[in-house]
């Protein structure tokens, strides 16, 4: 009996993880099956084993970790520039009705411009080097941080606003005790979204601006040299790192709202 209970408990913990691995496993099986038919040339679709060997090769003698570090620091650098600015701007728009009326519409108009449409202008202004890349990542992180903070700060529940008036709070007390904590979940959602956008924009910057160390640069290299195995390694690394990013951000989000835990 107890053995069964232990197995059941273990199963309940590992089950979601195992289930999430089913689809990738199926994908690899399908991939291997296609390779085995020899209908597709190996230089178009190399076998899973070839890609794995390439990955090993990159780890052993290549620049893989250097590329990962370059991409990560670029993403975090752009995030550090764009997200706080978005946070501040979102608070201004959400908390001041005047600011919302003055600057809200132009921000909404700005949102209609696809992010990649900024690349030519930014590369003229900041160059295609590190500064241009950081500028692009920063404006990518800026928008989601602004939108979510704005919405959260503008929709403080009426009962709390009423309480704030009944306790005759001044501006600072209202901000500290009512507005910011009430908007905190939305702000954190915005920061998480900004982090993910920064990561997506990092690859865009690396692909479309000057070649530099980084995973996007490796993708370009793979295309130029026709090395599909390298491209698959880089794409997989992007997915895994991005997943790690959003998991970490979600955990940080849960931790910082400790009052909602029972």
């Amino acid at each position: 009996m107890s053995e069964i209970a232990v197995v059941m408990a273990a199963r309940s913990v590992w089950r979601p993880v195992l289930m999430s691995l089913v689809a990738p496993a199926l994908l690899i099986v399908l991939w291997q099956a296609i390779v085995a038919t020899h209908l597709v040339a190996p230089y178009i679709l190399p076998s899973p084993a070839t890609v794995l060997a390439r990955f090993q090769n990159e780890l052993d003698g290549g620049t893989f970790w250097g590329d990962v570090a370059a991409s990560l620091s670029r993403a975090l650098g752009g995030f550090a520039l764009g997200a706080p600015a978005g946070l501040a701007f979102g608070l201004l728009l959400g908390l001041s009705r005047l600011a919302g009326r003055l600057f809200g519409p132009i921000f909404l108009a700005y949102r209609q411009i696809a992010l990649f449409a900024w690349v030519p202008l930014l590369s003229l202004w900041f160059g295609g080097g590190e500064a241009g890349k950081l500028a692009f990542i920063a404006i990518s992180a800026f928008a989601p941080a602004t939108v979510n903070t704005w919405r959260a700060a503008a929709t403080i529940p009426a009962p709390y606003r009423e309480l704030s008036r009944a306790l005759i709070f001044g501006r600072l007390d209202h901000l500290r005790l009512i507005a910011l904590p009430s908007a905190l979940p939305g702000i954190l959602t915005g920061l998480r979204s900004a982090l993910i956008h920064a990561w997506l924009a990092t690859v865009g910057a690396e692909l479309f601006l000057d070649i530099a160390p980084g995973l996007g640069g490796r993708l370009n290299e793979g295309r130029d040299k026709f090395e599909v195995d390298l491209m698959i390694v880089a794409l997989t690394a992007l997915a895994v790192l991005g997943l790690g990013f959003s998991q970490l951000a979600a955990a940080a989000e849960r931790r910082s709202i400790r009052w909602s835990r029972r």
Partner: protein
Amino acid sequence: MTELSRNRSDAVAALEIDRVGKLFDVAGRRVEALRDISFSVRPGEFVAIVGASGCGKSTLLRLILGLDTDYQGEIRLDGRRVEKPALDRGIVFQDHRLLPWLTAEGNVAAALRRSGLPRRERRRLVAEHLKLVGLENFAGAWPAQLSGGMSQRVAIARALVNRPRFLLLDEPLGALDALTRLRLQDELARIVRQEGTTALLVTHDVDEAVFLADRIIVLQPDPGRIARIVEVDLDGYRDRSAPAFLRLRDEILDTLGVRHAPQQAIATAA
């Protein structure tokens, strides 16, 4: 209003509601929420306002609190027109409205932000009022960890911590289960007596009004206006099943258009 009558009412009444009316715009239609409400409250008095939902009783409390100044007539505290909320009026809402990101202690302390008292004095007052509502051992608890009754006790402590002249109670026990409500009614009677504050309770629970109030203002809806004002001549602790209690309760229910025949039978039998 002449100087003379104003001075005279100063001496007697702490709160005067003088021919107050209130209109709302609901979907482009004018709705009269309150019409010609006049009564006054003496210092230390406990007044209950009862009525069916929609009779404007909560609206009236919001006006007294000063959250809304767009109304006809005048509401005066010590002879001065109410312009905005102030610390001389503490309020308990039906939803406890504790800030979930502050502890019980933090929520009570929040009401002292504008008191101008030194930190040490504030801490003493917070501890004293948590003790008053019997929650001295839950100072560090988050609202999410407290039951509905406990949360409402914290809200009562928060409303009283500034030692307000008026305690405004907007259906404070309406969201609680029946047993907790009875227990908190006892508590409320004790607390108000102990603090010596003037209390104004809005409720739709007639028993609650008879149990707690010195005077009951019965409102009728459409538009909200005073149906009658009832003095409660019951001394000391009020036995909820005493004949006099039940008689008064049924009288008020009658005014509200609710018949209570079975209770009447018990009352006459006893």
